[in-house]
Every structure is written in structure tokens, then in C-alpha cells.
């Protein structure tokens, strides 16, 4: 049968960002995929070598606007590790609070985009309406809706007082009510969602391990791997169990993310109730020297920072290993065999973040 190459993207309605997939098709069936990336590469790794190391926090936050807090967290943890700084425990709990807040907002954003990709407009609207509550909490506690920008080397910049914590709990209860009423039952029961996602884009456990998938893509295939198990920040005190689904299809990945929204909600409430009194930051002096690898769990998966300092105010090298970069190879396994109309849903099911990927 004749083969045709169909370019999917770079400007496609389901992606807010430019990425191109060159799909090799036999009629409607995909037989091969070549990803074309690089439309929005900026060269942040080089700029990080030119800036003083403290300013890099703000640059790292803008690697990706959706998971900006995790990028800054990973960078700060790396530098703290290198300079042997002990972060106060209140700061560690506050970091967990904002990290889980941005995880919730990222998963809700993705859920809305997924609903939009198969034409479920009302779910998209409902999800984004619920997400605004999370963004309000973020603005109330940190000063900005999406780029929290509260990390500094040695702790955090803002504190949450008793009154604010109470307000956060009220808003989260409001969110939970909205999610329980409209989002969760729709995801769990709606036949149209299942029709579009069950059995689509299967990634087996062996393939996922070999292709080094990360995050919900990996956990949806039955591998219990989550960087929060390494107990950075305050996850040791709060306790953490990864969420695993075994089916390995788009629906399993959706379920992992939906359950993680609820898990994050619990972690936030726990962090607020367990938060110890004390300082929120320690003063850090000196220059970083040595090399270190720092890892955190982003909403999309594992984020690796390799930092090398040479005893000056500028870093020798900063390498950012992002989850989408690691997840693109698994697309090459998921897509062949599926139909052209399923490509948007399957591509979205890895939660691509191109700004992260190309840096």
C-alpha cells in the first residue's frame, strides 16, 4: 500500500506550543513517526553559565511556566546540596505545599486540554473553572498566579500564616466539592472518554522501562517509580505512596493524573497541618564548587539537574534533563498502529511540554 507522510503541526489546534510529528501513514493507519522539535529552543543552558548563580533561579523558573516551581526547587536543591546547606524544616514543608499546588494546576490544565482534544468542551470548561481556584490560592500565597517564584537558595521567600492557611483550606474544600461533583464522575464513568482513550497508545511495562519513560507515562504502565520516593523536601515526614495503573494505555495515564490531583490535595492539607514553626530561610554565603545531580518529580515526570560550580559566581555548567525530552521516545512506540484521528489524544496523553523539552 502506498505510504504518505503527513505533517502534524507545528501549529495545531490541540497544542498550545509548536511541535511537529511527521506521520508516515498507510491509509488511516500510522506506521512510523519522526518528531521534529526545535521551534522554540532558546538556549537557556548557555544563559545559565553567563548569569550569576543566584539569578539563575529566575531563569530556571522560566524554562517552563507550568511547572516553574519544580525547576526552581530542583536548582535550589542542587546548589544547597553542593554548598552543604541545611534548609529549615518549615521551608521544606512550604516547598512541598507549592510543589503540590503547581502539580494540581498542571494536571488540571492537562485534563482540560485532553477534554478539548476529543471535543468534550463542557468538561474542558469545568476543569479550567476548578483550576482557577488553585490559581487563586497560588496568587494569594505567593504573589503570582502561575510563576510562584518563592524559592531562594537556603529556603523560601514567603510564609503562610495561620489566617492564610485557613483560607487555603476553605478554598481547597471548595475545589474538592467542584471536582467531586463534576470532574471525577465524568472521568470515571463517561463512555465517550473511555471510547477515545481505552486501549489507545499502549506502552507495555518493558517498553516503558527500556525507553526511559518518566512520570505518569511510566506509572500508567505499571512501574512504581516516583522521585518523591527519594524523600526530598518534606516528603519523608509527610509520607508518600506512588500511584500506579497497569493498563499502559491513554486511559491509565489519565487515571494516574486524576488520582494524583486528589493525592496532591491530601499532601497539601497534611503539609499545612504538620507545618512546624521556625525560620523560612537560612542565609547562604560563599560560592558553589563541585558537581551534583539533583532530581525532583515534576507533574510530567522526573526532572534532572546536573550542576557544576567552579568556585566563582558563575556556574561552569548547568544541564537540564526534562521529562518531555525523556517521554518523546515512547511516543515513537505508542503511535504506530493507531489511527490518524487518535494521534492528538495519544500525543497529549504523555503531557508534552515543549518549552521544557527544548529549553
Amino acid at each position, binding site marked *: 500500500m502506498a505510504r504518505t507522510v503527513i505533517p502534524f503541526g507545528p501549529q495545531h489546534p490541540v497544542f498550545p506550543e509548536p511541535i511537529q510529528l511527521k506521520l508516515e501513514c498507510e491509509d488511516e493507519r500510522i506506521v512510523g513517526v519522526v518528531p521534529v522539535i526545535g521551534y522554540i529552543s532558546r538556549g537557556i543552558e548557555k544563559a545559565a553559565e553567563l548569569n550569576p548563580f543566584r539569578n539563575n533561579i529566575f531563569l530556571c*523558573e522560566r524554562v517552563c511556566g507550568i511547572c516553574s516551581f519544580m525547576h526552581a526547587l530542583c536548582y535550589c536543591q542542587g546548589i544547597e546540596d553542593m554548598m552543604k546547606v541545611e534548609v529549615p524544616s518549615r521551608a521544606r514543608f512550604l516547598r512541598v505545599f507549592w510543589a503540590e499546588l503547581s502539580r494540581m494546576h498542571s494536571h488540571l490544565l492537562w485534563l482540560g486540554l485532553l477534554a478539548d482534544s476529543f471535543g468534550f468542551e463542557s468538561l474542558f470548561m469545568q476543569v479550567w473553572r476548578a483550576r482557577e481556584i488553585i490559581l487563586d490560592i497560588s496568587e494569594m500565597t505567593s504573589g503570582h498566579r502561575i510563576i510562584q517564584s518563592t524559592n531562594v537558595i537556603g529556603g523560601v521567600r514567603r510564609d503562610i500564616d495561620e489566617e492564610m492557611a485557613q483560607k487555603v483550606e476553605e478554598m481547597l474544600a471548595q475545589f474538592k466539592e467542584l471536582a467531586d461533583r463534576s470532574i471525577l464522575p465524568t472521568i470515571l464513568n463517561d463512555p465517550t472518554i473511555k471510547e477515545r482513550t481505552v486501549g489507545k497508545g499502549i506502552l507495555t511495562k518493558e517498553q516503558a522501562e527500556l525507553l526511559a519513560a518518566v512520570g505518569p507515562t511510566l506509572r500508567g504502565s505499571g512501574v512504581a517509580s516516583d522521585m518523591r520516593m527519594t524523600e526530598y523536601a518534606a516528603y519523608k515526614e509527610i509520607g508518600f505512596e506512588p500511584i500506579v495503573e497497569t493498563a499502559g494505555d491513554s486511559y491509565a495515564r489519565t487515571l494516574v493524573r486524576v488520582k494524583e490531583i486528589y493525592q496532591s490535595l491530601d499532601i497539601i492539607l497534611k503539609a499545612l497541618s504538620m507545618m512546624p514553626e521556625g525560620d523560612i530561610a537560612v542565609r547562604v554565603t560563599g560560592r558553589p564548587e563541585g558537581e551534583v545531580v539533583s532530581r525532583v518529580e515534576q507533574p510530567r515526570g522526573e526532572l534532572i539537574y546536573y550542576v557544576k560550580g567552579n568556585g566563582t559566581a558563575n556556574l561552569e555548567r548547568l544541564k537540564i534533563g526534562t521529562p518531555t525530552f525523556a517521554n518523546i521516545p515512547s511516543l515513537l512506540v505508542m503511535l504506530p498502529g493507531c489511527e490518524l484521528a487518535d494521534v492528538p489524544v495519544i500525543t497529549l496523553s504523555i503531557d508534552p511540554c515543549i518549552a521544557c523539552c527544548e529549553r
Partner: protein
Amino acid sequence: MPWMLPTIMKNLFSRPVTRRYPYVKRPPFPEARGKLHFDTEKCNLCGACSRICPANAIIVDKEGRTIKYNPFACIYCGNCVEGCPKKAITMDILYSPPAIQKEEEVITFPPSTK
């Protein structure tokens, strides 16, 4: 799809959630980060803000006794507010408004009395 019915009924008879933005303005939260203000009384033009600004939005001219602040380069991170040794920089809760021209703000300081 019976589980949708309560949601549909509730949304049908409740007020719209839409913020009627240009007519009804909701103020940002008091902690929100926004535009910078320089206090000409407190500032001694040391230039610390200019050195720690990640976006090069502040240029301090010590001889000319001016500070050039570009709100179109500023990323509203608040690094300068915390890094100012004299605490001369404060943050508004609002961003600078959209504009047709990119205009830098020039803050002129009175001549030194010392």
C-alpha cells in the same frame, strides 16, 4: 448519563461564574507582585538592584543621578525588593498597563546634598 443531572441543574440556576472583567474589576490579592516603585529619599544609588536583576530591567546612573526602569523587560520577580540594602524599592500589586510604545521610566533624583 444521570450523574450529570445535578451539575446541569445546579449550573442552570446558579449565577454565572464569569468575572465581568472590564466593568467589575477584582483587585489582586494584597501579596501580589507588580510594578516597582523607587523611593528617592531612601535610595543611595548603590546599584545593587541593577546587578541582581535577572532581566537587566534596571539601569542605575550614579553620575547622572537617575534610575532607568524598563517595565517591559521586568519579570516582576521581586529579587530587587529583597536585595535592596536600603529597602528603597516597593512593589505595587498591579502590573504596568499595556501600552502602544515601550517607554522606559526614568526616575530622577534631586542633586546630592552631601
